[in-house]
């Protein structure tokens, strides 16, 4: 009998202790002095910039990184009745419809929105989301390989199916990786709803290799990246980002004079990332202030070297590393979020049976 009582008491105590931790946690977020940002793993900002916001607004910023972009959006949707934070950053145009259709955000027209380029404002009528940054998913090439083989690097989607580039390209699984999906959407935008399958048949015949994630494609298979060189990667073409070449420079010690990789500018698909005020946010006032801050010049100019994306605000200065090693594509492919939402699952399915089976 005694042991049972001890056990029951211990359980009780444990639960009290645990719930005490819990309630102190939730108190922190109901606190009107704290703004909680929910984002994906790629979120990064300089300490000084966040500190400046905290000082000027009086709020304390708390950040919750919630896995990769797709995972973070799905988790936010699952928890939307009792959200983990006030602001969500990191839903992109490929996932935007899923977030909006599920009522993830409440409308807020951010202060300073008139400074954001019209092309990025994909929810212009309702202002449920605010564009924060953009980036391009493009084929990157290994400069050394093409110099050694006296071969011109490919420039466009059409080039990639030419015989001189046979067995050179590695891409990611469109079903599991966001650059992989971006590349598929780019080809669909280029060749149309009915043409992209024919393009991929040719790409497959030309020896495209598909791996599951960006890490593998870039760090293992690609011969031009730092990781890929160490892993003796053999593919000189990889689907990555337009900002990968500057990253190769910035994260090298000592920094090389030129980037070891380049971008095939005719193979790009534009990704725009948005932030929004979560539907049941506890601190709406703080959340609004934070969204305003995200499109302030200070944050926008800090962003490129932290997250390797480009600012959406007019007149924001882009760091020299970007202009020098990785300017954005001039004519990237784009697609309306509604169209992506309507076709995405079907396209990924046919892509899978076409390319992987």
């Amino acid at each position, binding site marked *: 009998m005694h042991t049972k009582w001890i056990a029951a008491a211990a359980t009780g105590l444990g639960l009290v202790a645990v719930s005490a*931790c819990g309630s102190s946690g939730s108190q922190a977020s109901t606190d009107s002095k704290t703004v909680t940002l929910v984002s994906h793993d790629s979120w990064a900002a300089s300490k000084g910039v966040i500190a400046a916001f905290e000082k000027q607004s009086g709020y304390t910023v708390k950040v919750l990184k919630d896995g990769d972009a*797709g995972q973070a959006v799905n988790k936010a949707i699952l928890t939307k009745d009792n959200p983990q934070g006030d602001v969500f950053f990191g839903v992109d145009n490929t996932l935007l419809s899923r977030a909006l259709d599920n009522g993830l955000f409440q409308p807020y027209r951010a202060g300073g929105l008139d400074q954001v380029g019209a092309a990025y404002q994909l929810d212009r009528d309702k202002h449920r989301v605010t564009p924060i940054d953009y980036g391009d998913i493009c084929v990157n090439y290994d400069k050394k390989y093409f110099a050694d083989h006296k071969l011109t690097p490919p420039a466009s989607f059409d080039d990639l199916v030419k015989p001189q580039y046979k067995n050179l390209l590695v891409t990611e699984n469109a079903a599991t990786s966001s650059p992989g999906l971006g590349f598929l959407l780019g080809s669909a935008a280029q060749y149309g709803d009915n043409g992209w399958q024919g393009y991929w048949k040719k790409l497959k015949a030309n020896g495209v290799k598909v791996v599951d994630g960006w890490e593998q494609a870039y760090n293992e298979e690609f011969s031009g990246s730092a990781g890929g060189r160490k892993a003796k990667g053999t593919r000189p073409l990889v689907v990555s980002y337009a900002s990968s070449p500057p990253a190769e420079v910035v994260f090298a010690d000592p920094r090389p004079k030129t980037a070891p990789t380049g971008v095939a500018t005719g193979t790009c698909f534009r990704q725009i990332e948005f932030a929004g005020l979560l539907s049941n946010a506890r601190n709406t006032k703080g959340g609004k202030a934070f969204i305003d801050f995200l499109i302030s010049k200070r944050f926008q100019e800090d962003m490129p070297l932290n997250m390797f994306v480009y600012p959406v605000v007019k007149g924001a200065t882009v760091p020299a590393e970007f202009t020098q090693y990785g300017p954005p594509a001039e004519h990237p492919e784009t697609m309306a979020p509604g169209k992506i939402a309507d076709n995405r699952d079907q396209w990924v399915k046919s892509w899978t049976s076409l390319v992987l089976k």
Partner: protein
Amino acid sequence: MAVPVAFFAVFFAYPVAAIVQRGLKADGAWQFGRIADVVAQPDIRHVLWFTTWQALASTALTLLVALPGAYVFARLDFPGRQVLRAVVTVPFVLPTVVVGTAFLALVGRGGLLDELWGVRLDTTVWAILLAHVFFNYAVVVRTVGGLWAQLDPRQEEAARMLGASPLSAWRKVTLPALAPALAAAALMVFLFTFTSFGVVQILGGPTFSTIEVEIYRQTSEIFDLSTAAVLTVVQFLAVGAILAVHAWTVRRREAALKLVDASVTARRPRGAGQRAVLAGVLATVAVLLLLPLAVLVQRSLGAPGFGYYRALTNADGGTFLVAPIDAIGASLSYAVAATAIAVVIGGLAAAALTRRDAGRIVRGFDALLMLPLGVSAVTVGFGFLIALDKPPLDLRQSWILVPLAQALVGAPFVVRTMLPVLRAVDVRLREAAAVLGASPWRVWREVDLPMVRRALLIAAGFAFAVSLGEFGATVFIARPDNPTLPVAVARLLARPGDLNYGQAMALSTILMVVCAVALLVLERLRTDRTGEF
């Protein structure tokens, strides 16, 4: 009993039920018809089929490769034996995200096999099978070898004396004695490979998918919660069946065997045969286990003057709000907390399971405690999010969530380590103490504790190592201000650039060394009979 039951009910059963319900219940009605629909899809059938046959193949291959190892570590005494025994366990507790990358260097292009014979196995099923051997080698060595070391060698010698050939003596005397341990090891390997996630995701390429990987894809990428819920249920049933068989073999194993102290059974190798086996095992261990680990170390040293290690102290990289090196501190403190929880929960469960009046239901709980090892981390993670979100249990932002999730994985190991030792305590001792008027608490303190203290330490050490390397559940809930080592490695690997890649390798090496040291300490402690791990 009440504490572990409550713990598993609140932190495992309830969250998993919540997420399954979310996927399978529409407009207040259960959609059990979905189960048949989903299972009927050709893609899903393919996944089920692949999951099963690769697990069978992996288990067979692991037994084939690791059994000679079990023999060598059990019966042969050679220099460096303890260190090596600890080192072969390191893969088991390392996060797959780290090892998958290193393993590619062995079987991928430019790897050792490629350079020697031009053999490349990346994105073939062979890469998956070999990686499964790499991860589960220690399970066989520890489970089978542990028992083997304690079998009285004189029995086999007696058979030899009576004219049996070495092979037939082994077959007729040793093999039957080992059979239950063999079955238990095979079932554990089958369980781990059946629910394999990281290995298949990294090495399998997009064409191979296990149920576990498919649950992740359906939940995390496609957001088809009902398909994910069906797959969770299917996997749950399969794992339940595996565990039921496992619990049965474990009970049979504890049937009386004449055991001796492991320290007296090992001898220096004698004769050409034993030397050849030893050499073969050492070569296998070197190529299959040490080489991938060595690749990690080598890549972490790629910058002059330990540059990658020095970069770890720098917080300006932007990937984290803290310097990557701080992840070590975070990891260690999480692991300590997780170990404490796992030892309390697992220890209480093991104590309850040893009681003589423990009925069928309580014994069934034994298998239940192992379930967290077989349920997908993504299910548990999403379950935590939607189930533990209301006071008094709003834990989603609490630091305690990480150790709780890790303890779920650590507790089964504690139970497995403690149970055989506790069962070996002579009940009559307890009864005698009780008759003489000792309270139950005093009986535990005076009779049980002295006998199980060592096992408790080993259990704690193993839970600690498992918590350190735990990735699946942690990645869902780790906070950005204090990522654990495996999470930090994964985040660094996800960014381009030399420094990020190098730092990921350096952090992996540190994690590997910490795990190896923890396991080495365990080896020092291990001189008595201590269960399966």
